[in-house]
């Protein structure tokens, strides 16, 4: 789960990091008041869970409350890479001496936290990694031991920091590691981390991702989850405990098991189609859940055909078929639906479906045939 910049900064401040003074505004009027309160030059920054807001015009630096109001007027409601801006962060300024980069992430390969630090901040770190890899210091932390003083020294010395910057960054790193650990973050990134002319070290931006699996011990963070910002289908799926990701195509896809569904998407693409979504209904053949999943998938206006790919395992093919039939009975979907049923008792399952299903439901024996059929039907079909 990603946090908005202002939420991430709250987390950082809770752990002793310094940020600029900032106020969240949801309307131009609030932005004006915030600018008045902060005084002087302020930045009005779109709060969206995606990068590149600067290039998209989502950040404006202004000199008066009136201009702040105007800027907020323009930014609020803006669409940045499919994300609608619903809040802006109004922040004061700082006299910047230099910009740095600092992050801590879970490194999957090493299974340890990885610290990345660079004195080349404010730019895309992956670009720095390519053009000037020596400018990035990498330090792994042992998760049981925690961050050690010598590792902080490695970061500071290897990047050539001295004086206030060295002391400030060392302190920030220790606090950031505590924040990373206590918040169960999979990523905390500060870019840029700035040294001010006054010698302070400030987090000018923040990108924080909290491990979804840890939310049971962070109920406060779960509450922050911004339901408005989510896609309506994704939001419904989440409430129904379904794994659903919206895509751009027209073939709606459902299946049981994440790997099988991913594979189904690929096979549809190989057959020349475009998947409209990823939807894993999970194990079992609960008719109600299948009905809800079908309804979510088909409520996407772009969907022209549906492919339901099932592997009968512990839940046998015949049981799955009955569950699907019962789900179809309670729904009013008239889009073509291709059902591919494989695994234990698959033949029996297919027989049940063929004998009882409405006209718009087609069965296939193999994944490849089913994908081809669904793609064809999407091309022909429509509503």
């Amino acid at each position, binding site marked *: 789960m990603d946090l908005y910049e202002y939420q991430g900064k709250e987390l950082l401040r809770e752990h002793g990091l310094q940020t600029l003074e900032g106020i969240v505004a949801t309307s131009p009027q609030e932005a004006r008041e915030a600018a008045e309160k902060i005084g002087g030059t302020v930045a009005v920054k779109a709060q969206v869970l995606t990068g590149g807001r600067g290039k998209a015009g989502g950040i404006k630096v202004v000199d008066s409350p009136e201009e702040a109001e105007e800027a907020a007027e323009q930014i609020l409601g803006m669409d940045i890479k499919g994300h609608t801006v619903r809040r802006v962060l109004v922040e004061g300024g700082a006299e910047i001496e230099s910009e740095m980069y600092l992050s801590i992430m879970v490194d999957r390969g090493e299974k340890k936290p990885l610290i990345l630090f660079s004195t080349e901040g404010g730019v895309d770190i992956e670009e720095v990694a390519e053009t000037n890899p020596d400018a990035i210091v990498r330090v792994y932390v042992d998760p049981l031991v925690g961050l050690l003083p010598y590792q902080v020294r490695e970061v500071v010395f290897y990047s050539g920091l001295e004086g206030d910057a060295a002391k400030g960054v060392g302190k920030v790193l220790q606090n950031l590691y505590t924040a990373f650990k206590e918040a169960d973050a*999979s990523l905390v990134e500060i870019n840029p981390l700035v040294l001010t002319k006054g010698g302070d070290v400030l987090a000018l931006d923040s990108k924080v991702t909290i491990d979804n699996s840890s939310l049971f011990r962070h109920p406060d963070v779960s509450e922050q989850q911004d339901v408005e910002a989510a896609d309506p289908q994704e939001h419904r799926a989440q409430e129904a405990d379904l794994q659903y990701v919206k895509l751009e195509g027209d073939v709606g896809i459902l299946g049981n098991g994440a*790997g*099988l569904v991913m594979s189904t998407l690929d096979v549809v693409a190989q057959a020349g189609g475009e998947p409209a979504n990823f939807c894993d209904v999970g194990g079992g053949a609960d008719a109600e859940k299948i009905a809800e999943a079908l309804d979510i998938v088909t409520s996407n206006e772009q969907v022209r055909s549906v492919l339901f790919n099932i592997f009968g395992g512990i839940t046998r093919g015949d049981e799955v078929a009955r569950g699907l039939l019962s789900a179809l009975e309670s729904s009013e979907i008239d889009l073509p639906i291709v059902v591919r049923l494989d695994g234990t008792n698959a033949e029996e399952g297919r027989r049940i479906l063929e004998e009882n299903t409405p006209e718009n439901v087609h069965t296939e024996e193999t994944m490849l045939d089913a994908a081809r059929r669904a793609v064809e039907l999407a091309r022909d079909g429509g509503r």
Partner: protein
Amino acid sequence: MAILVDENTRLLVQGITGREGAFHTGRMLQSGTHVVAGVTPGKGGQDYEGVPIFNTVEEAARETGANASVIFVPPPFAADAIFESLDSGLGTVCCITEGVPVHDMMRVSDYLNMKNATLIGPNCPGVLSPEKSNVSIMPDDIFTPGNVGVVSRSGTLTYQVVNELTQRSIGQTTAVGIGGDPIIGTDFIEILKLFEADPDTGCVVMIGEIGGNAEQQAAEYVQAEMQTPVVAYIAGFTAPEGKTMGHAGAIVSGGESTAEAKSQALEKAGIRTATNPTEVGEIVAEILGVSF
């Protein structure tokens, strides 16, 4: 032979009285697995389908000689359950639980460095050696004994591929679901090593997906160290960046983590890589010279 679990496996079920634990204990018993003990704190002294229940893993292992454990406890308690198994000297620990926090798993993985034990999972379907031992939630009726090893990050894709094999009368030594989480106890390489060392495994199927770079690491290992032929399949070519595709670990977040990058690395290492599950069965049949 089989890897990880076989007829000598004496299994202990952690969370045996929970919904999932109870259901799958019944299934594992039906498969002929030696389920010798269950653990549910506070229910020590009771039994479930004839399997004695203990309050602690240490006591259960001491009393029953259990040498492996399978974990069905809820996510908040899963890491504790793993530590308990490791500290009780169990050699193979299989954590089925989905949703274990990543920070918990970093600590567990670190601790594994001190222990002579193998952790499979979490968020995995388990391990099954056909007609020897079923320490999993996998449907045993699609399996048949034979000489193909299967290792996979995904449950249902494993079933799909095993089914493709069995339908072609190609049996399996062992199928290992290593789990779909970002941090898992045992990666592809460790399992590939076990299959390579197993004289009965004549071919290995490796099923990967988007996220991380474990497949690339495995490719390097296969090229450098393995004699046994390996057939690979990767899912997730159509996955968009930054979206979790069902499995917590299945997320494209940078060049290495894409299905393309993984497939290319595998092929570059000389590993035959199928484009769909059916093709996996076809390639294995070709390698083993099976016609049907």
